[in-house]
């Protein structure tokens, strides 16, 4: 508890000092207001957009998309990665192809996707899911491969079937890497989502900051960026971390 307060109070001091310096700079520097709006303008932008209902809608849209990608990543990406980890033959066959496509980022696909799927929801979802997929798949594969053979042998000598070994050894043994893959995938996916929303321009936080730029609403851009960062911190801290705590940390499989 002491350590927690130490970290929290340190951050409060740093943030306060930073905001004070920013306010001072905005008030004194010889630049137009749209170049460097003061923190107060960002805050009033937050209040305004919240009361108008735009901000909750945009946040809701972005969160809905990333959570959908998380679900698809978990239920499609993880099984694919596990299969590749279990079957060396399938992995040898699929690996070069996967490697090729993972290097072509979801954002690089966007121009083509816009032609194929149009300026809409479909393009955003496909681009984000594409980005989430690869870290999830590769880490699940790595997770299976890093399970010590001794656990597999122990279960074989207990008379376990292949399926039993997958269920009782390979999947739980791969969980630390799966958790890392999902976390990484969603972090990449979150960035890709913002980029896709900027290009597609329908709604969401990416659209909000891009649209604000057209009207020189710099405070709104800053607000959007701050929310993008803050949402991720919250998502990671309150959703992904507790998940880890309840499983692999409980089993002593990650160092804290």
């Amino acid at each position, binding site marked *: 508890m002491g350590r927690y307060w130490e970290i929290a109070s340190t951050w409060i001091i740093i943030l306060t000092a930073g905001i004070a310096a920013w306010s001072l700079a905005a008030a004194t520097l010889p630049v137009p207001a749209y170049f460097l709006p003061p923190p107060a303008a960002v805050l009033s932008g937050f209040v305004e957009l919240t009361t108008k209902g735009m901000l909750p809608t945009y946040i809701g849209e972005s969160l809905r998309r990333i959570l959908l990608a998380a679900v698809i990543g978990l239920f499609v990406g993880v099984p694919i990665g596990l299969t590749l980890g279990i079957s060396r033959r399938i992995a040898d066959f699929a690996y070069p192809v996967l490697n090729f496509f993972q290097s072509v980022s979801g954002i690089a696909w966007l121009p083509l996707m816009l032609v194929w799927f149009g300026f809409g929801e479909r393009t955003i979802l496909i681009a984000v899911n594409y980005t989430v997929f690869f870290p999830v798949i590769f880490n699940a594969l790595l997770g299976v491969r890093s399970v*010590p053979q001794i656990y597999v042998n122990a279960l074989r*000598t*207990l*008379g376990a079937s292949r399926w039993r070994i997958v269920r*009782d050894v390979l999947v739980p043994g791969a*969980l630390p890497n799966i958790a890392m893959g999902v976390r990484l995938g969603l972090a990449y996916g979150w960035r890709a989502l913002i980029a896709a929303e900027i290009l597609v321009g329908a709604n969401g936080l990416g659209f909000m900051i891009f649209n604000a730029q057209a009207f020189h609403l710099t405070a709104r851009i800053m607000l959007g960026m701050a929310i993008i960062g803050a949402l991720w911190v919250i998502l990671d801290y309150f959703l992904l971390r507790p998940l880890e705590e309840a499983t692999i940390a409980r*089993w002593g499989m990650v160092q804290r």
Partner: protein
Amino acid sequence: MTAKITIRGLGHEYVNPFTRERVLALDGVDLDVEEGEFLTVVGPSGCGKTTLLNILAGLLPKSRGTVLLDGREVTGPGPDRGVVFQEFAIMPWRTVEKNIAHGLEIQRIPREKRAAIVRRFVELVGLRGFERKYPHELSGGMKQRVAVARTLAANPEVMLMDEPFASVDSQTRITLQEELNAIAQATRKTILFVTHNVEEAVFLGDRCCVLSGRPGRVKALVPVKIPRERRRWKLLMSDATFDAAKEQVFGLVREEVNVGREG
């Protein structure tokens, strides 16, 4: 007495994947393990002790010869041969009781019966109060107790043990050896126990099988005629039978180590 395990002309050859060299690990091993016997296997390092055990476990294919359990050829791993590994091969994601129940789950023993069996073996290996702990919360000695309990709970025909006490501290090892002796006495299981520790081999074995240096062969079988109830370190401190057997086995192993040096 009938032989539980019959090994005839067993050989194992493997190819070093880097040098492509063919290495003969075991050659012409003949060995019988009697029903209810505690047989210990010692030999210099690299003599193929673990290879022998892995072939018996069905984890490694043999190159030639026959290995029979109750007259049936061993072809792969099976629940009739329980194995305790050196590296505490218990699942970190299962609690103590879940680990001990693992073999029973695989055998589809109903939940209530499973719980009763687990309780009995938790008791036997002295882990009461630790049932809900995860392996990372246990000491090395306790982890190995879990592994022994898991193997015994699955009720195998024979228990194969591969240097199970090599990675625990010497104080714990002494305790575990005495506990295993008591378990052997109580359960009358057929046990094949591989170790490089001569004292341990003599302390635990009804007979002590000395393997020659590579390629491993059975060099000698030394009987240790000490009743189970007398096998406690305090009682054996100055026991003529124990000392004589120990001397004999030491001598046999030393010969092999020296041969290895000259060769």
